[in-house]
């Protein structure tokens, strides 16, 4: 009898600690800033908007980089792509941010089967996508996250926290359209007036800025192509990856 009672208590205790219904990091609308360290190196920063059911994290690998937006809402995590539209986390082929950021997106988990442990009503650990996050708390909520991903260890430290106005538009998801119509937008500015500020050729590869010669050539048209491709540089890689994945060509061939 005593053994059975003990077993029942144990089961009840485990059930109380482990739950798939993850608590939010902050239950009231909150904006917080986080630094992400790997050892002594800062690998990025996150601006986090949280509320009871939704979360939005804006990841920056460095200050000058454009943020990569992650949105956790309605039980799914989405990533906003620079080419336009949002893709589910599983379809996103990014860098380390795709492993780090989900630790902050609770209550939305990367999959419904993720292992979330709760103690005294607070998140204590979260196991997802091969990573394990352990949470530290202070009076304002989660103050730091120790994250182990493979052989790497990260510390996500909260650097500021404050209340924020409830803003439902932060969590609106716009799923990507079909690749063809999406990528059709990439060169929408091909026929816009040439920008004087844009180097006409691929300057990053050490090629000169565009020269024009009085030789009857149409250098204005040429510069439009070059300027388009220059502006594309950041987006082209991602667009190409998707294009090749869809067609099973290039780096995505079987």
């Amino acid at each position, binding site marked *: 009898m005593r053994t059975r009672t003990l077993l029942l208590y144990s089961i009840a205790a485990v059930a109380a600690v482990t739950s798939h219904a993850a608590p939010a990091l902050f239950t009231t609308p909150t904006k917080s800033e986080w630094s992400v360290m790997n050892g002594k190196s800062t690998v990025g920063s996150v601006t986090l908007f949280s509320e009871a059911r939704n979360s939005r994290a804006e990841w920056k690998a460095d200050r000058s980089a454009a943020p990569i937006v992650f949105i956790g809402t309605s039980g799914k995590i989405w990533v906003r792509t620079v080419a336009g539209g949002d893709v589910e986390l599983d379809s996103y082929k990014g860098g380390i941010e795709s492993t780090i950021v989900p630790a902050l997106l609770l209550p939305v988990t990367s999959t419904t089967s993720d292992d979330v442990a709760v103690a005294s009503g607070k998140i204590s650990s979260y196991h997802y996508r091969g990573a394990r996050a352990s949470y530290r708390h202070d009076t304002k909520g989660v103050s730091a996250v120790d994250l182990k991903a493979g052989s790497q260890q990260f510390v996500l430290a909260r650097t500021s926290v404050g209340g924020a106005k409830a803003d439902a538009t932060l969590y609106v998801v716009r799923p990507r359209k079909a690749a063809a119509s999406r990528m059709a937008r*990439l060169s929408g500015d091909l026929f816009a007036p040439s920008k004087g500020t844009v180097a006409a050729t691929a300057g990053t590869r050490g090629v000169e*800025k565009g020269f024009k*010669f009085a030789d*009857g050539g*149409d250098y204005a048209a040429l510069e439009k192509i070059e300027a388009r491709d220059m502006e*594309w540089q950041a987006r082209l890689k991602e667009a190409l990856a998707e294009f090749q994945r869809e*067609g*099973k060509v290039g780096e995505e061939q079987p």
Partner: protein
Amino acid sequence: MKAITIAIFIAAVSATPALAQFGDILGKVNRNRDKIMKGAKVAREATKEFTDQEEVALGRVVSAQILAAFPLSKNDRLQNYVTLVGNTVAAYSSRSELPWHFAVVETPTVNAFSAPGGYVFITTGAMSQVQSEAELAAILGHEIAHTTERHILKEIKRANVISAGTDLVQSQYGAGQLTDELAQKVGKIAIDKLFKTGIGRREEFEADRVGVALAGQAGYKKDAFLTFLKSLSALEKSKSSAFRQLAATHPKPQERDQALRASVSSQSGGQLLAERWQTWNSGG
């Protein structure tokens, strides 16, 4: 004194043929030297190696000429599509590091062009003959091959308009010695070759072979190019004016088919992507 004068006279008279002979020899030497020097200059110029920057500078001149002849297509979808397919194939080329640019130009003429330094153009006329993405990949592969094998660049070298010592690109912000006059000469050579005389049968066959191989490496069905050649062959038979320029600058489609068939017939697999081509091409 008189005897001395006579002796000098005799010596002079007798030496005249020898002098004349010596003069002939000297003349021959001079002429040969000129020939040798000229030959050396040609050899030097023919072997002048252009840096990638110089190649891009020349490519811009050639591209501006192509764009002066044919305006850019205003079909954004096709521009994007060609860029995506082109970059997919160019990544497998021996010069994947070049800043590749792909664009569609508006003309019913069925053709595609490449300029040094990574500029590739395809006409809307050629696009109208394409039936699958794999065909497009092979056409762009053909043009990429012209660039990787430096075919137009060799023609520019051969024309000897650029001396060996000419520094086309002096600094990051200067045009070096690529002047308006030199740009005009380079542009004329390239346009003559691209639009009128062609750059040589051997080079075209080589571009076919390399281009199809590149498309194959990028995962496209290699024999799709044979389908495109069939379309060209039909155009040729119909005596279409859209085919005239291509006929003047390329070997006959049947010959190209024969030359390629051996290398692609054994190949199986790869993507055709006819439906994707339709989707992009139809604006859907």
